[in-house]
């Protein structure tokens, strides 16, 4: 059997990772969701519905773009960019929300909630909720609201309510806690659209499946445009949905290496980072068993990253599994390296990536020059950088 088909198992596990670790109130809701999803995911009509939205509403397929100028500058492997930044709403997040909102409708839910870090998932959720005429509440950490004010405003214009979360570290993990608390209270009429390949089963599977359109397109585009499969796929990893979407269709193609790039923050040795796969340990948070940044006593640690979307102490359980079985490698890029890569791609290719994406680019900057010119790297441009303008300007000491 292929690696791909093995996971998750009937208990929602990827090896020892994943599973369902939630309070009893939510167990029946997750079982219902898993059953419903299992029934509907291969349904012809449902698939056609999702496909139609992906084409006409999201604008898929997204191009696979040969970064000729950047490749030349790096002087090694050919670098191709998977342009998820060109999707409607500006990131890969919409692939998932388009699918999950249809699932919610089929389940008869009338109210949508979501957590968001950088705000991209919040925008993507508010967008599909607006379109389907469903009530929508977005939970966002107070810290993230400050650094992503543009997206907060977008969400509000889309008619959704933004709830500022000021417990704990006031970032993505706390927004997720709060969304879970909402869900447990309003579980009868509410659908929780989790934005990453994280949380209790079946979410890691659902979010992976809806995002795997990215990898599927890369398979076809590589064949048509390059005439061969890529040698290396690179993507940034916070919770890990854009990486999982790109990697998943390639898991059984052993000639293609997979590298996920976590947020190194100020450096792994400073402790101020968000790299659980590189510097964390196994534990249970947000309904899943996975790698976490935690103290010896099992308290979740504060994370730091220049990018709000990577500022999360856990990671999707399938990544934890891919790391353990050695199918994917996980490395880090720090804040400064990400910032440099952000500027370089913008200058050389005229493409301004999200700061999250810039972590993947920072790794490409390092690895491409060491590779032969016949080699091909595909990097997922998971989102566009407009939302990060304030953050970058702040660092440069510029007032907008």
């Amino acid at each position, binding site marked *: 059997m292929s690696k791909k088909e093995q996971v998750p198992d009937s*208990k929602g596990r990827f090896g020892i990772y994943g*599973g*369902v*670790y*939630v*309070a*009893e*109130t*939510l*167990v*029946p*809701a997750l079982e219902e969701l898993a059953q419903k999803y299992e029934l509907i995911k291969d349904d012809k009509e449902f698939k056609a519905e999702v496909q139609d939205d992906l084409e006409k509403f999201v604008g898929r397929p997204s191009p696979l773009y040969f970064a000729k100028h950047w490749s030349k500058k790096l002087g090694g492997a050919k670098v191709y960019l998977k342009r998820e930044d060109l999707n409607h709403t500006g990131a890969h997040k919409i692939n998932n929300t388009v699918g999950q909102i249809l699932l919610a409708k089929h389940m008869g839910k009338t109210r949508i909630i979501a957590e968001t870090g950088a705000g991209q998932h919040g925008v993507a959720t508010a967008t599909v909720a607006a379109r389907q005429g469903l009530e929508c509440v977005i939970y966002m950490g107070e810290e993230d609201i400050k650094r992503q004010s543009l997206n907060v405003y977008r969400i509000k214009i889309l008619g959704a309510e933004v709830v500022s979360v000021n*417990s*704990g570290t006031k970032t993505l*993990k*706390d927004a997720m*806690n709060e969304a*879970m*608390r909402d869900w*447990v*209270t*309003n*579980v*009868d009429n509410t659908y929780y659209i989790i934005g990453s390949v994280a949380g209790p089963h079946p979410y890691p599977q659902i979010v992976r499946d809806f995002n795997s359109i990215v990898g599927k397109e890369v398979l076809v585009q590589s064949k048509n445009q390059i005439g061969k499969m890529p040698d290396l796929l690179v993507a940034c990893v916070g919770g890990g949905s854009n990486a999982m979407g790109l990697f998943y269709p390639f898991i059984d193609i052993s000639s293609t290496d997979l590298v996920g790039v976590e947020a190194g923050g100020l450096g792994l040795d400073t402790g101020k980072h968000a790299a659980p796969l590189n510097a964390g340990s196994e*534990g*249970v*948070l*947000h*309904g899943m068993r996975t790698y*976490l940044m*935690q*103290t*010896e*006593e*099992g*308290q*979740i640690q504060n994370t730091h990253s220049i990018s709000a979307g990577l500022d999360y102490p856990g990671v999707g359980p399938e990544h934890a599994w891919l790391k353990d079985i050695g199918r994917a490698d996980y490395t880090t890029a720090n804040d400064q390296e990400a910032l440099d890569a952000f500027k370089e791609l913008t200058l050389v290719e005229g493409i301004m990536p999200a700061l999250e994406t810039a972590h993947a680019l920072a790794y490409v900057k390092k690895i491409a020059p060491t590779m032969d010119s016949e080699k091909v790297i595909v990097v997922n441009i998971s989102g566009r950088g407009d939302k990060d303008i304030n953050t970058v300007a702040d660092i440069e000491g510029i007032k907008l």
Partner: protein
Amino acid sequence: MGRIETTFLDLAELKQKALIGYIVSGDPNVSSTLMAMHLMVEEGVHVIELGIAFSDPMAEGPSIQQGHERALSEKISLKATLKLVKSFREKDKKTPVVLMGYMNTFEALGSEVFSSTAKDNGVDGVLIVDMPLEASDEFTEESRKQGLDVIRLIAPTTTESRIKKICKQASGYVYYISLKGITGADSINPKEVEKKVLKLKKVTDLPVVIGFGIKDGKSASKVKDLADGVVVGSALVDIMGGNKEEIEKHLSIKIKDLSKALHKT
């Protein structure tokens, strides 16, 4: 026979309901917790649930979240809590103590170390909020071996077939979550609770207690006849987080009020 079983049997004989008090261990500090445990017993609490502080207490409302945060700022740990129970046992050999918390902190200590230390130090039961039935073998097998009761939660959403499975695995008492929501919420519906608890009673011989949303004598008296006991948490945690000079006074008043309501026939 363990302390939990003895306590509920004694209460049943007296036709009394159990008052279960929840506070967070180390909130606002360890010595206050120890003081509060003895005081609670003195004023009429029959079982003590000690919350184990966690950085991400997903099932808790604002009151108990703040309790967790206060305890963590005092650097409380599961290990320190086990020591605290040992100190409590120096004076109180009778009152059951249940540790209630989240999977990650229990796992960090390890099931063997936790279970044997807990047993030695006089802990009677463990309730792990985010460890549903399907995941329970991973941690609680060791606890069971040591003779600790593994308390299980039943929610309004739990189906009948699932209730049966859960009750088979439960020991000590069964904790019925009275509402869909987080601790300290405000929407308890006695009629719905009654329906579910009646079903529950048919399935299990274990005592059934009701928690979430009970904060004073008035709300306690609404549900007390439905079950074998009630759990009060947020209201006590609010007191523990209030003015330090007045914790004793307010705790005493609150528990007297609850106790009176439970004893009224």
